């Protein structure tokens, strides 16, 4: 297995873990919050809201403007 393949498999594994956390977070008896829940919790404060929105803006700039 080449190092390129290992790198790609690593990214796929982490993204799969994130998706799994979201699925687990939606089950009725879990301690894991969903993405929306913890983002909402972080955005309770204006500073947290600004950081999250700037992160969203950065993501758009990174992938769509450059």
């Amino acid at each position, binding site marked *: 297995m*080449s*190092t*390129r393949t290992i*790198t*790609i498999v*690593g*990214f796929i594994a*982490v*993204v799969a*873990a*994130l998706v799994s*956390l979201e699925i687990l*977070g939606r089950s009725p008896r*879990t*301690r*894991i*919050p969903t*993405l*929306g*829940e*913890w*983002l*909402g*919790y972080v*955005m*309770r*404060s*204006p500073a947290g*809201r600004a950081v*999250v*929105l700037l992160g*969203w*803006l950065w*993501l*758009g*700039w*990174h*992938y*769509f*403007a*450059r």
Partner: protein
Amino acid sequence: MTENTSAERPARRRADTEPRLPLGARPARNAVIAAGLIGYAWVIGGAAPFSLKALVGVLLPGAVLGVIAYARPPERIPPPESIDIAGFSYWIIAIALLFEWEAAAFRDGSPRWHPSLTDLVNPVLAPHPVKCAAIVIWLLAGWALVRR
């Protein structure tokens, strides 16, 4: 905690006075919004990288959503009063792993044997329809964040 930010208060006042219609109650309006979003994404998706058009195309929705978020927030989905720290830590670990994996590739200059996520995603986004769809998802994600 039960703190009530100034940004939330106007939204709650509006929510008290204006009954919320179910999704799909205004099909014509929704169709116009969807067409506008797709049209905008199609135009921006065709902009050359590093061009002024591409930059403005990203900054404009950012500015609009920023104004909406702080000046005239929509009815927001109430955030949870608290979250389980142990459960939240799983998210932190996974996100930290993603950043570490990306930073390792970035540090090496994203060579072919250790590409960064950006270099892997860019070819996937290269076809115009795919990029258009990704921009629509990004715009909808921005709106979802404003509603949180």
